[in-house]
């Protein structure tokens, strides 16, 4: 991605980074709406996952394009690696804590083998 700038005119680069920023912000808002709208804790966890992964990635990628090939880009890359490395651990710990505090998954059908019949509660 960083090898591109010299080949492309600045305007194109700006447009690309703007598109990435808009996409990332849109995903962020989608995730937040999902966190507000989804019915129970476990489904909200998935919505929060959207904001943690692709949304953060797109916003930081947009910023990277603006920074060009400098130390700033490397720092942004490190932030991205941190977020992608820590967010599954945090999600997993959240889900585990929810299990231990007996947060019941609303209307989740339970499958033990590969296939199972519909047995929705709630």
């Amino acid at each position, binding site marked *: 991605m960083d090898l591109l700038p010299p080949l492309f005119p600045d305007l194109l680069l700006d447009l690309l980074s703007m598109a990435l920023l808009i996409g990332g*912000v849109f995903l962020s808002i989608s*995730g937040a709406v999902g966190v507000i709208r989804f019915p129970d*804790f476990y489904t909200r966890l998935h919505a929060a996952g959207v*904001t943690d992964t692709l949304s953060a990635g797109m916003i930081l990628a947009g910023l990277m394009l603006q920074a060009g090939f400098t130390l700033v880009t490397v720092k942004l890359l490190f932030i991205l690696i941190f977020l992608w490395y820590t967010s599954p651990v945090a999600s997993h710990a959240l889900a585990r804590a929810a299990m231990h*505090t*007996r947060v019941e998954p609303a209307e989740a059908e339970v499958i033990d083998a590969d296939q199972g019949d519909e047995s929705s509660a709630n």
Partner: protein
Amino acid sequence: MFAAAAICILVVMALALARAFLGPTVCDRILAVNMFGTKTVLLIAVYGFLTGRPDFLDIAITYALINFIGVIAVLKFVEGIADSEQQPRPDEF
């Protein structure tokens, strides 16, 4: 462009705060706070570009680390309280 992105991230943070207030369980609140934290990291990064001061990225890195460790610590705490309150634990989980 950066200003617009920053405002949108602030909106997202407000929504996360709404979920933190609404609850209903303590895990929902921690989830919201975790999301608030990652959005703060992004906001700091965008703000660094907005004001043309890339030094802010160091703060963003530190914030990402502290946020993660804080969330894990609070979760351990909550989990410990839940486990000690309900002594006879079922085995299915």
